[in-house]
């Protein structure tokens, strides 16, 4: 849910990182985010929001790669830990319900990839 408001924070973060790069002849190629499944991000909506919100910014035309991080659970009773696709907090080993979420809760911008502008590159190689 709320891909647009999340995407606003994402675009702001991307532009901030892009502004830090000294070389101004660059273009943003990709932005990678890691989305914990606990956040229930809908990739299609987030990509749509990203396309709209990056319009007329230096990040326009870049693609957004979303890595979904599955939820990792740990059983406090028997010590089992593992990944799950569903939000179902029942231990697969002992059937206990005393589960702790130890992963898949984060939502972060992992990295951005920049490249030199195409036109510049051709001129350089000729």
């Amino acid at each position, binding site marked *: 849910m709320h891909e647009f408001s999340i995407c606003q924070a994402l675009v702001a973060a991307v532009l901030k990182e892009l502004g830090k790069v000294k070389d101004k002849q660059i273009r943003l190629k990709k932005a990678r985010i890691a989305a914990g499944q606990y956040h*229930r991000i809908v990739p299609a909506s987030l990509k749509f929001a990203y396309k709209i919100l990056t319009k007329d910014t230096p990040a326009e035309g870049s693609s957004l790669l979303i890595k979904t991080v599955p939820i990792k659970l740990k059983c406090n009773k028997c010590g089992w830990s593992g990944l799950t696709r569903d939000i179902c907090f029942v231990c697969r080993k002992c059937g206990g319900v005393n589960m702790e979420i130890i992963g898949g809760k984060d939502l*972060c911008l*992992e990295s951005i990839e*920049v490249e030199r502008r195409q036109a510049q*590159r051709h001129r350089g*190689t000729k």
Partner: protein
Amino acid sequence: MKALRWNEDRHKDTEEQSDKVFSKTERFIKFSGFVPVFLLPMCLIKTMKIKVYRNLMGANDKWANKTRALLAKENVKMLNLIGSPGAGKTALLEQTVKKNSHRAFAVLEGDIETRNDAERLARLGCEVSQLLTGGGCHLEAKMVHHALRDLPLHRLDLVIVENVGNLVCPAEFDIGEHAKVVVLSVTEGEDKPLKYPVIFREARAIVVSKIDLLPHVPFKLKLCLEFIRKINPHAPVFKVSAMTGKGIKEWIDWLTAAG
């Protein structure tokens, strides 16, 4: 029966696809393993990966932390009351105002439109402030932080925020509260904890409301409690009826202890 998970399956291929678009040179370099010497400097500067690792919920969390600091300074506890529209959140608060004699508390009412709920509580003499989102489906940390300034925090020891009726969005937005409380009415169906797991997982207490209607609705209370335990093994569950006043005492006792 096949279920389509919109948030995963369908768009898994997009990442691979976007990596597959190579230019002629790139394909040559990738598959032959040979990098022409004159292209070497170009390859080096062509793309650059910058590691960031920045939390994207930061903007909301910043306001939530501000609110927490403000509440800590005034020594006030804050609860976030969440439930679907018509679950009985305001009715529960009305009973709480009536029966609660020893806590100084205020209510922050979140609604899309109308001041009806605030008026209902104000009539009972409760300190109340209305927050109209004008379309927003949940309260965000920034709104709550600004609305809190209207309340006489120095005189209070508990603020209950009644969120906009919704079981989805409020789960994801930390508003700086100390605990979330979910209200589930028996007219909604016992499987709601499984359908909206995030909110039930985050809750520190769960209120099953309208239990006076149990003889008239096909709601299986035992099954519902089982489902709640699957999602959240620790939170206390209060079975209350705001109409008859049943179970309100236990709820108020918890409220007193929680504050």
